[in-house]
């Protein structure tokens, strides 16, 4: 029963991943995203550093998950190391 569950999950994941791939996304000639950040980044966010404006304004949700990942790492290290004693 468990095996079929994983197989169904794998099929759904494969369909979602294949559906989300866009052939023109990785094209180096498609500079729309880069040009948008270069032209509007300073006006939109008010920060001179474009890297900060991307990871704290356009992609702030990713930064939140990134901090949660570090939090999980701390919990894991403390839990595993403290189990021996």
């Amino acid at each position, binding site marked *: 029963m468990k095996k079929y569950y994983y197989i169904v999950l794998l099929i759904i994941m494969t369909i979602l991943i294949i559906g989300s791939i866009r052939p023109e996304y990785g094209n180096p000639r498609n500079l729309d995203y880069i040009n948008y950040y270069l032209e509007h980044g300073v006006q939109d*966010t*008010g*920060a001179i550093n474009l890297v*900060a404006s991307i990871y*704290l304004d356009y992609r*702030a949700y990713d930064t939140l998950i990134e901090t949660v990942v570090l*939090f999980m*790492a*701390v919990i894991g290290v403390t839990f595993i190391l*403290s189990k021996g004693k």
Partner: protein
Amino acid sequence: MKNSRIIRTLAQKLLPFIFLFGCYLTLHGHLSPGGGFQGGVVIATAIILLTLSYGIKETENRFKEKDLSFMEKLAILAFIFLGLLGIFFGYPFLKNFLPLGQRGCIASAGLMIPLNLIISIKVAAGITGIFYALVKYRGEI
């Protein structure tokens, strides 16, 4: 375990400058290379230097592990709270709702300075917590 007197004195004199550099990297995160993660790691390095030179017991009197883990959890909650606060003003989650200010000044870019400060506190507390766990449960130092 204590190290020699030279190392202890040098660490004592260097500590405020390392803290200052970490705060500088954090507060200038939106103007120059750096940011919350890097500043937090530098601040954690100062506490690690203190542990290496003075030993774990004397360091834990100043920077208690309980307080550090409390601050870490508080920082995550503050991050989410700042994101939710924008919803009450009618913006999406984690959208910048503060005024942008003048370009190039430290007091600009709205929500970036609080988020950088929160990330810096969180990373400093987290890396110090990992180091404390390695030292205490493995007994390396």
